[in-house]
């Protein structure tokens, strides 16, 4: 694509210098300008009735306290279902649930007053995990408390099993995962006050992913018009999904305190509070029953996906949908039945986390493929290669994969880059012939995975996102969207896309901070949709803007519009070359700023039936293969990851360094989830609610990484780009477990692969 001047280059990210000099202002760095501070009184119980709330011991005259009775009739976080209270009313359903809010001129005074709030509870027996949830929940009269279901039926599963030569069954489990963004949650709410100090609206600045989600939640909470609420993103220190849903809650809290006190109120969570209160990755239990031919060909898959949703519905139906849609893996199978269910427990609501259900179901199917390979005595690469999707194959929803299918390509590349099969076989032999028990065991493991870009099914059609560009009076082209950069590099890649769409230099393009008073609703920054979907809108908006300027330039120079090109910042006609700024200056002087906007346009002839789960689930898919190499100490069962090779196809790469950064960072999160990160719980309380006890990978845990980007373009993204954000979370854990199995012969079906778990399982090793 020789017309691309910016896309494909690793340009300096626009926020780079501010971040390396410490000048970037995160929420807690913003000038406080006399704002008050808020704190939250939380439930110590997993399940309890609230008998009384007594604030009479609070003596500080300035302090304002808000409880459920002050919230008003719309006491819920307006997300999918309105079941998640902003403040607990009458009962609590998890430890850490917010019950009362306190604000004061200083944080110390707010904290002191919060300690003086006396809440009396009547504890009830809680439901704390999937085993208990399956037995039944008192909240639903002793029946399992089902928050969401989602089923897929493809082909004839019974006939498929009847034709199978071998049947393999397995059950796989994953636990909570904490996002552990380095900047905890924070928000400042500034009230708009009328002449009599009445509350007219609120201005929110926060560390968040989805400004329009917060906007929607607050217009609902206060039953106010859209223009009464303004939401802006501050520089955000990581999100990974953790700042998708929860900012609705903390912004609501700060806004309620701002209303109560008539002051701006800041709430910043300390790390421990952040871990206790905010969402986690859904724990999962996935059962597989697979019918195969002796050569490894899949003929039937029967899959049960069970997720622990926590106390409220929040985003669980959508997480389940993505889990189910990815549950059969990147493999063609003519007969598939998938049943998905989310059950409630008395734990903090589980929510969005990079991958959004897919890492859980892909972990299960990848381990199941390993079990199939072991059962048949073939290598784990061979069983994958045999069944990997090819162009023209049908997915479990009946979607025909028509373009940009790279399952075989990523496997081939992973194989040749690592000499996988040969080394896998060598390690197996070494393990079986091992005599010296003190020797370190070496293993290599591989996974194959896919990830749908953008919202599932009709999500994009329903959202009808908008993106805009504007030629400003200062002759800069400004990008206007609600997509947030919380580290990924969104601002940089949007500049690149718009520069090339318009045909101008990167220096002519700036990105406006996401602010609901200024930018159109481009949807939330989730679901690997930013580059492919919103980037696509911005490309079209940029092309419209350039078109208007070319028309203007043609008119100015008296040539036909078709005779004008705008390329790399220069208008070219048969009469000569004119710099972009010159034409832009004339345009703005005559007509003022020029706006162009694009709205999402669904792919023609693409349908998805949400009732039957048939049709095109995603416009495009990213594809990945991971190869993980490990050394396991046979005495301590401590695993050291020595090398990671990733092969990813995310279509046209907009910025190679940042794209690789997404892959590497996401894969390390996946590996951490696979062997280090374990949220331990007792009586509904997280035991390791600090970074000292919840371990995430450090540099010492991190292997050298080889990051290979294949570029198989899609017609559905700008310049052929697909989504990259979540794909890297999908394959690390199963590849790691296969590598540990290759080293030790221990086949774990549950993560994390801690030394304790490996030791327990060593008594039942395969082979």
């Amino acid at each position: 694509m020789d017309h691309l001047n910016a896309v494909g280059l690793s340009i300096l990210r626009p926020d780079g210098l501010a971040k390396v000099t410490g000048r970037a202002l995160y929420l807690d760095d913003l000038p406080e300008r006399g704002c008050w501070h808020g704190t939250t009184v939380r439930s110590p119980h997993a399940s309890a009735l609230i008998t009384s709330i007594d604030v009479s011991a609070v003596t500080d005259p300035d302090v304002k306290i808000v409880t459920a009775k002050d919230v008003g009739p719309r006491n819920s976080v307006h997300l999918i279902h309105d079941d998640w209270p902003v403040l607990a009313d009458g009962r609590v359903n998890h430890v850490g649930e917010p019950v009362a809010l306190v604000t004061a001129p200083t944080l110390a005074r707010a904290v002191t007053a919060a300690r003086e709030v006396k809440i009396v509870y009547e504890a009830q027996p809680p439901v704390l995990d999937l085993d208990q949830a399956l037995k039944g929940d008192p909240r639903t009269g002793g029946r399992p408390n089902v928050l969401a279901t989602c089923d897929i039926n493809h082909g004839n599963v019974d006939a498929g099993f009847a034709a199978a030569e071998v049947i393999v069954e397995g059950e796989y489990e994953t636990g909570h995962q904490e996002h552990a963004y380095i900047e905890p949650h924070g928000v400042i709410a500034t009230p708009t006050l009328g002449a009599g100090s009445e509350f007219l609206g609120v201005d929110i600045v926060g560390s968040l992913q989805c400004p329009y989600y917060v906007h929607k939640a607050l217009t609902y909470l206060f039953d106010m018009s859209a223009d009464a609420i303004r939401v802006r993103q501050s520089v955000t220190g990581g999100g990974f999904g953790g700042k998708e849903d929860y900012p609705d809650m903390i912004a609501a809290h700060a806004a309620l305190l701002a209303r109560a006190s008539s002051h701006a109120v800041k709430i910043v969570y300390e790390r421990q509070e952040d871990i206790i209160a905010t969402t986690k990755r859904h724990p999962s239990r996935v059962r597989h029953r697979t019918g195969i031919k002796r050569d490894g060909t899949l003929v039937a898959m029967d899959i049960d996906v069970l997720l622990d949703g926590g106390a409220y519905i929040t985003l669980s139906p959508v997480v389940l949908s993505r889990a189910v849609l990815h549950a059969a893996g990147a493999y063609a199978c003519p007969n598939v039945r998938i049943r998905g269910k989310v059950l409630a427990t008395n734990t903090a609501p589980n929510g969005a986390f990079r991958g959004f259900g897919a890492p859980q179901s892909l972990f299960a199917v990848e381990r199941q493929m390993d079990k199939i390979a072991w059962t048949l005595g073939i290598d784990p690469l061979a069983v994958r290669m045999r069944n990997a999707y090819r162009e023209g194959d049908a997915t479990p929803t009946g979607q025909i994969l028509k373009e940009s299918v790279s399952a075989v390509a990523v496997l081939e590349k992973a194989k040749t880059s690592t000499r996988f099969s040969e080394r896998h076989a060598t390690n197996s032999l070494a393990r079986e012939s091992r005599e010296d028990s003190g020797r370190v065991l070496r293993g290599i493991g591989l996974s194959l995975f896919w990830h749908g870009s953008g919202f599932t099914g009709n999500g994009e059609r329903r959202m009808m996102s908008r993106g805009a560009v504007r030629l400003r009076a200062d002759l800069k082209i400004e990008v206007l969207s609600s997509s947030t950069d919380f580290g990924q590099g969104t601002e940089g890649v949007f500049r690149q896309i718009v520069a090339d769409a318009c045909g101008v230099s990167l220096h002519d393009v700036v990105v406006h901070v996401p602010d609901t008073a200024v930018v159109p609703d481009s949807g939330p920054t989730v679901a690997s949709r930013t580059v492919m979907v919103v980037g696509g809108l911005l490309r079209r908006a940029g092309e419209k803007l350039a078109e208007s300027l070319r028309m203007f330039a043609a008119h100015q120079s008296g040539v036909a519009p078709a005779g004008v090109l705008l390329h790399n910042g220069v208008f070219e006609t048969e009469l000569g070359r004119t710099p972009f700024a010159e034409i832009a200056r004339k345009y703005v002087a005559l007509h003022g700023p020029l706006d162009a906007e694009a709205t999402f346009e669904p792919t023609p002839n693409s349908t998805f039936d949400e009732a039957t789960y048939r049709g095109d689930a995603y416009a495009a898919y990213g594809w990945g293969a991971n190869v993980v190499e490990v050394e396991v100490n046979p005495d301590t069962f401590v695993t050291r990851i020595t090398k990671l090779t990733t092969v990813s196809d995310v279509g046209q790469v907009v910025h190679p360094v940042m794209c690789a950064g997404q892959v590497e960072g996401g894969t390390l999160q996946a590996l951490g989830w696979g062997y280090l990160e374990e949220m331990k719980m007792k009586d509904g309380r997280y035991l390791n609610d600090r970074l000292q006890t919840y371990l995430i990978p450090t540099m010492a845990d991190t292997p050298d990484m080889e990051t290979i980007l294949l570029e198989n373009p899609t017609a559905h993204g700008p310049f052929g780009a697909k989504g990259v954000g979540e794909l890297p979370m999908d394959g690390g854990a199963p590849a790691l477990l296969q590598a540990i199995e290759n080293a030790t012969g221990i086949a774990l079906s549950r993560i994390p692969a801690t030394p304790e778990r490996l030791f327990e399982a060593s008594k039942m090793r395969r082979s």
Partner: protein
Amino acid sequence: MSTSYKFTLNGEETEVSGPPMARLLDVLRRDLGLTGSKEGCGEGECGACTVLLNNEAVCSCLVPLFQVEGASITTIEGMAPQGQVTDLQRVFATEGGAQCGACTPGMILTIRSLLKRYPRPTREQMREYVSGTLCRCTGYERIFRAVEVLTGQRTPEGVADAPVAEGARE
């Protein structure tokens, strides 16, 4: 309870009054307005608040104010003169060493300290020295690479599309 303490901060003599056990991090952020040092955990685990105390990387959330009397402290704001960046900072920006940026000030100061000890560090030396500073975004690979570019062990991958302030060198 307040006592006066004198120390050198980013090359300038500074005097601060506060309780002896006040956290240096709060003194820097709240009293002196230097918000480049971040609080990620408040217990010395994440390293986002790292500053140099007499050229040693320390977590400023664990340093009581009385301990800095007479010491020399460098924060991220003191790495380079206003409007300039060091080569170390520049490679972090151009080579993907910074994503969300919340760990970045602490990470850069930790690595500055590392480079004093190991001017051309191997990955094993980096792993040992830098493991106290957590990054959740990058997977560390681009941090390794940025240091390798800086120390001439690797060719750059990033392209600077805007002039990067020159001049300040380590």
